[in-house]
């Protein structure tokens, strides 16, 4: 059987792994972190873009347009949160009309459906909290929102149950070719493959440059965000963009699939590709610009901040395809609209790789993945049934998001389950509410310790070195 190694378990690596599991091959995903979705895939806007922003003729435009319509079916197949809520690009001055028109034209050229330009009053009729200064907006009904890490986890779980292997804490340090490809990791382990797919996100240039003469440069472009409490009330029903700039799509205000409001991201190129810290300037910038779209924001509504790094290819477009070295395949520079494009990229890459390796079909492939049964969104009858089936569903652990012990145990014990606090959080939402895990931290640590059979002191926030405890009391 042909062996394939995918480097990186973000949304790109995991979606390609899942699409490749339709074929008869031995697929291994190597991830440097303790879990899937630990890089860009866990900290981004979670937008399924309509496709009016990408430059016509680019891979970004192509895969955006192909990817967007796939979400309705995919989100059902893989059971991840997705809502097609539509988007608006707000225009604050008549001087910017040409830019707005240009965006509309680009959208038409890219084949985006349903675009229309509305004047200010009509915009406020649809979104009453939008600033009085808005004179017009481009409305894109096909835009949507998705849970980005839930989507990545769903892809990974489905890949796993269809036979893909995952290895975590495997930082790739060298890739050599001697007949087959030998991939070596920092911990001394090595793996061989007939084909290597580089999905290493912000580190994709380092991976490429280990192999290819044609060097690549990926810049980490930091985006800082603020998340508002669910109880902030109605602020926007659609994603509200501002006119894009050279650095990206500007500051957006958007509902999330869980009913919070997200504002951000800023866009600042940073040297340290591991640095996802937030900054005072960045957060202030995100907030003040978001207030241009919706002036009624109050910092008291904020429950958390985070930042993510976009993998910006200095050449501008996605890099997708076999490199000059046969058997080394790049999927790099996947910044926005990367999340939207991921499903289409994955299908495309899997097909190319299957053809290259002449792979047969995996007759046992099952496209369906069921997520964790979410207590908070059940009806009372469903809740009663869930507790009758599993009494742990009657034990609420995270009070803010109403997450039960049943869900947390499932998140740990399911395929590719959570192994740390952040893993539980991303799978169940425990700790994502207004108290930000103040009450549930110790409970979840106990559950992780019990289910994984590890000592409390070995429970981490996100693996390597992120231990929460340093010892026993005297």
């Amino acid at each position, binding site marked *: 059987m042909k062996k394939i190694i995918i480097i990186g378990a973000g949304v790109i690596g995991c979606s390609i792994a899942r699409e490749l599991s339709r074929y008869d091959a031995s697929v291994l995903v190597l991830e440097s972190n303790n879990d899937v979705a630990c890089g860009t895939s866990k900290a981004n806007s979670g937008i399924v873009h309509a496709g009016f922003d990408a430059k016509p003729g680019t891979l970004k435009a192509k895969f955006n347009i192909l990817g967007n319509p796939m979400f309705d079916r995919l989100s059902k197949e893989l059971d991840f949160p997705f809502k097609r809520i539509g988007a608006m690009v707000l225009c604050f001055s008549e001087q910017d009309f040409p830019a707005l028109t240009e965006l509309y034209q680009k959208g038409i050229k890219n084949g985006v459906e349903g675009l229309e330009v509305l004047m200010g009053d009509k915009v406020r009729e649809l979104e009453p909290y939008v600033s009085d200064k808005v004179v017009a907006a481009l409305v894109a009904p096909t835009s949507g929102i998705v849970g980005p890490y839930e989507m990545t986890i769903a892809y990974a779980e489905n890949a796993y149950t269809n036979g893909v292997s995952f290895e975590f804490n495997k930082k790739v340090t060298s890739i050599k070719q001697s007949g087959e490809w030998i991939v070596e990791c920092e911990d001394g382990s090595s793996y061989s493959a007939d084909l290597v797919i580089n999905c290493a996100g912000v580190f994709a240039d380092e991976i490429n440059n280990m192999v290819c003469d044609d060097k690549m440069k990926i810049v980490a472009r930091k985006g800082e965000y603020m998340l508002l409490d669910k109880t902030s009330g109605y602020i926007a029903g659609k994603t509200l963009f501002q006119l894009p700039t050279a650095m990206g799509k500007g500051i957006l205000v958007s509902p999330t699939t869980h009913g919070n409001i997200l504002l951000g991201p800023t866009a600042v190129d940073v040297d340290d590709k*591991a640095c*996802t*810290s937030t900054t005072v300037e960045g957060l202030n910038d995100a907030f003040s610009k978001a207030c241009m779209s919706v002036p009624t924001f109050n910092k008291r509504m*904020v429950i958390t901040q985070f930042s993510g790094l976009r993998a910006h290819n200095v050449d501008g477009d996605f890099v997708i395809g076999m490199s000059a070295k046969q058997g080394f395949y790049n999927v790099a520079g996947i910044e926005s609209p990367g999340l939207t494009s991921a499903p289409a990229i994955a299908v495309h890459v899997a097909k190319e790789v299957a053809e290259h390796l002449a792979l047969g079909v995996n007759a046992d492939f099952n496209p369906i993945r069921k997520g964790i049964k979410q207590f908070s969104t059940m009806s009372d009858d469903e809740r009663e049934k869930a507790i009758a089936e599993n009494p742990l569903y*009657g034990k609420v652990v995270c009070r803010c998001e109403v997450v039960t012990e049943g869900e947390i145990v499932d998140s740990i014990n399911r395929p590719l389950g959570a192994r740390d606090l952040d893993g539980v959080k991303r799978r169940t939402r425990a700790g994502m509410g207004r108290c930000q895990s103040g009450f549930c931290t110790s409970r979840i640590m106990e559950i992780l310790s019990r289910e994984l059979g590890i000592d409390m002191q070995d429970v981490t926030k996100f693996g390597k070195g992120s231990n929460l405890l340093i010892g026993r*009391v005297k």
Partner: protein
Amino acid sequence: MIEKNLIIIGGGPAGLAAAKAAYDEGERDILILEREQNLGGILNQCIHNGFGLHTFKEELTGPEYAGRYVKEVVARGIEYKLGATVINVTKDKVITCVSEAEGLAKYKAKAIILACGCRERPRGGINIAGSRCAGIFSAGTAQKLVNIDGYMVGKEVVILGSGDIGLIMARRMTFEGAKVKAVVELMPYSSGLNRNIVQCLNDFDIPLKFSHTVVDINGEGRVSSVVIAQVDEKLNPIMSTAEEIKCDTLLLSVGLLPENELSKMAGVELSPITGGGIVDDDMMTGVEGIFQCGNILHVHDLVDFVSEESDLAGRRAVAYIRNGKISKDYVDVSATGGVRYVVPQKISRQTDCATLKLKMRVANVFRNKRLVVEADGEEIFSKKRPVVAPGEMETISLNATHLDKIKKASKVVVSLKEA
């Protein structure tokens, strides 16, 4: 649907005192719903002493104080359920509760006392920039890990905020061999009790830096240092004063927020200042038959006052159950002139109480002032206060004469005036 006369949500100090009082007032059909596996609430993790000086005239630890009330509740045979989380309350007083033992249960109550306590303000609520690594805990989370679970959370500690839990944890961590390098407070004064500053910081030479804040957190897996800086009068950091402190732990004690999610579901109107319900002299919210007491109503610094307030709520809930709806005509009580808020926010002209306590907090540290109650501009009460501070709740005890004047007034105002 199970029918009950009185359901108390929360089995901490507020809920226990309310239950005891309601029983002693003659009510027998009481149910306490508690989400944790023990009664007593947050007191169970407060193993330091200093509780009960007012209530029992002796110094108890948190678990001892809770234990006294638990004993009273158990002795009276008051029904309670543990591991029972209330997930919904309606204004018609229907409660949805889930538990491992009983699944999903619905209750209909004649009266409800919300005694859900408060939660800590998280890092996100104060927008501290920096790494999102491990080693950042709210003081109460660290207190639980240390005192209940028996684990140490760090060796070198910086504490942001001088709230009481932060001060208590500074001492606790020191006892356990950790080095508390600084307590950093944004304001020019502490939000904690003076006695805690003396007993928890001064006695251990832990520096308390007023008008400072944390501006950055460094660390990959775990915190490696924090950067603190002085702030100007507008509370903006002065970056030229920035100073890096090596540490592995940052504890946050930056405020407590009344936990009013259930109140909101029931349609209870909340005060934007306290974050708790708006109540009358019976501790009843704007939703008839739904009462509040303890830290869900406003954050207290002494549990003794929680018990006292909850005793009143328990008794008045029973009166409500007996008499049903009493039409009430209210006098609004408002705070101004250095007083941030006053609870209760309204007094019924029909009140049959002979005495009433008004509780309040001031907005800053003031010296040589008088706390004054005015009814339609007439000063009906005055009390000299050499020093008042935001960290210490102020109380005014009104007697029948005061109340008579209040009942006739159209407006009551509490303020600080020159002595």
